[in-house]
């Protein structure tokens, strides 16, 4: 039945047009797909991971004898290794590992879903770091003679434990201890400055026993389609820990990163709404558009007082070496009187973690 149809195609003008239309749509889809690949978080910096990099991969940068060669698909762990000063021991990275810039030249060995086995065999790392959900791949990889670890990385405490673990695994315990100490000091500094500021804010006539109420905060993720449900940061999460360090209290009592109905969230009456929209997500949305999603709840304090802040920094939700920076960012944001006011001055922000944020421009 199909054959005669095919034969008639060129003769039938209408069908010819339809065929042309189909081809056009075909082409559009392909172009769209390719452009979307370009727009997704594989920024321009990561583009040359093709042929040239493959060549590099087979002859990695002369590993020093005895040094453990590692590959990590977990962005936060990759970042930790680099922050420890062990970037030279990295031979491969995951597709979503985009920070710091010095690791971008590394060959991509996979992502959370798939690993590129051939590349791994060629690279022969001694150690492969996967996400906790990837544990099924452990046995498979050990068949190739690659040691696999999949550490939990969900709390501030996890970060310290992973730093410790990496110190042992990579044979650099001093570097690990130094990084941990530095991070502890940075976080303590954030806590201290939050306390100092809130002490300044306290009404001098009030009795000293009256501690200032923490700001009631909602941290939400944007939804491009603007649905009636919203994903929010709940208790027992890394971001919640940072929020409490920064002097805020989470209005959400559910645990984890949960989807809630807008009406339920609005009824919690947050005083501040923080929308975390990392760069790879809101490619084409302005702050105003994210804020507009809340405009119908006019008597929610955060909406009424125009205290909906859009934060684009990708490290806000990433447990890793920039967590002190994230805590500082949250603390500064909570102090902004309204979204119209300018963020805290740059020099102020730099004191929290000198040196590590100079090149903040992410792809």
């Amino acid at each position, binding site marked *: 039945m199909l054959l005669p149809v095919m034969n008639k195609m060129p003769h039938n003008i209408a*069908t010819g047009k339809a065929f042309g239309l189909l081809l056009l749509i075909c082409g559009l889809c392909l172009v769209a797909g390719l452009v*979307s690949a370009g727009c997704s*978080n594989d920024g321009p910096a990561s583009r040359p991971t093709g042929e040239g990099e493959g060549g590099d991969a087979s002859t990695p940068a002369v590993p020093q004898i005895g040094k453990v060669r590692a590959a990590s698909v977990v962005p936060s762990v990759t970042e930790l290794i680099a922050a420890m000063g062990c970037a030279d021991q990295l031979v491969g990275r995951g597709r979503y590992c985009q920070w710091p810039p010095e690791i971008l030249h590394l060959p991509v060995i996979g992502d959370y879903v798939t690993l590129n086995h051939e590349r791994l065999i060629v690279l022969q790392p001694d150690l492969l770091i996967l996400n906790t959900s990837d544990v099924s791949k452990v046995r498979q990889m050990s068949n190739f003679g690659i040691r696999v670890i999949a550490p939990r990385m969900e709390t501030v405490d996890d970060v310290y434990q992973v730093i410790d673990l990496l110190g042992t695994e990579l044979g650099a315990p001093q570097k690990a201890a130094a990084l941990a100490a530095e991070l502890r000091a940075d976080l303590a500094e954030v806590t201290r400055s939050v306390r100092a500021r809130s002490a300044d804010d306290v009404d001098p006539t009030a009795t000293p026993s009256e501690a200032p109420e923490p700001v009631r905060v909602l941290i939400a993720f944007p939804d491009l389609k603007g649905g009636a449900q919203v994903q929010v940061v709940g208790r027992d999460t890394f971001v919640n820990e940072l929020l409490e360090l920064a002097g805020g209290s989470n209005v959400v009592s559910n645990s984890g990163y949960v989807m809630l109905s807008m009406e339920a969230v609005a009824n919690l009456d947050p005083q501040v709404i923080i929308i975390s929209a990392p760069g790879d997500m809101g490619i084409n949305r302005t702050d105003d558009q994210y804020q507009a999603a809340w405009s119908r709840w006019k*008597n929610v304090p955060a909406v009424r007082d125009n205290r909906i802040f859009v934060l684009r920094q990708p490290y806000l939700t990433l447990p890793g070496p920039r967590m002190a920076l994230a805590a500082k960012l949250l603390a500064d944001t909570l102090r902004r009187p309204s979204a119209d006011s300018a963020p805290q001055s740059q020099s102020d922000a730099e004191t929290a973690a000198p040196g590590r944020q100079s090149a903040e421009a992410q792809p």
Partner: protein
Amino acid sequence: MRLTRQRYVITLIVCALVLILVSAFGLLMGPVDPLPLLREGRWERLRQIADFRLEGVVTASLVGASLAVSGAAFQALLRNPLAEPFILGISGGASLGVILALLFLPAQLVELQLSIGPVPVFLSSLSLAGFLMALLTIALVFAIAQRRGRVDPYRLILTGVIVNAFYAAAIMLVSALSGDKLRNEIIFYLMGGIGTAAGRWSELAVATVLVFIGIAIFMGQAKGFNLMAFGESAATSMGLNVNRHRLLALVVASLLAGLSVSLAGPIGFVGLIVPHILRMIFGPDHRLLIPVSVFGGAIFLVLAHSLLQIIPPEIGPLPVGVVTALCGVPFFILLMRRSGGSVGGSDR
């Protein structure tokens, strides 16, 4: 069952009452308990929550009505019990349109402001993109399937299935190449969801007008649908311009389907199951079946949407399509067993 004026009127009044009842249920159901707010006299908050829920209920009833009436028309026109609103690839086309707009539309164009006379109308260009792609898909499928201006149902179905497969592949391509979070966004969109954050009443008003025009056209064509059940040649001999009737009805049914996808994403099952269930209950006369489908689809989807609202968030956000299938299938099986197996639009 003869269709008397009395039976017609009573049935429709009962349907309308049930729809009102179910909508009231939908307004009462939600994660926030209104009683404490009532006691504290927080009227403004209550009004906002009611507005939010009403938008969900109105969207659900528009989408449910469009899908069910469109499904009833497709089943009659294609004389195929498996026919449903998305059989011609409309869901794939509209979804692709929305997803592409989601990814590539510059920020200034996401919300469009038009004015109809003095009234400002806000439209989401995502919905608009979905609707336009649905139109394009209809044009494409008909252009491929027609032969010298005549549309053969079997070629049409085949073309629809193939075009749908093509769109599915295109969507997979786009989502495979997108980043983690965008992919999540796409998957959630494809599950279908009801209601928006921003309160787009003007968009719903436009959609309501379109849905009512579609329903009116179908009501006018109801006799034609009945004649089509006797087969093409019999219908022609009884004075029906089969080609014209079929073309108009198919286009209107497709437009309603496209509209529903652009409003709420592809919500499966309503368009397939609801017309079947109603045909088993009310008989195959389309003069009654068409308006009853409008009510039935709306009732079914509003009910499903309302039930979703009381599921605790720990279980996770369930797409309304899951509920429609989970509730619809057992009910459908029950009815099919009891009606002795005469199912579908073709076997009478």
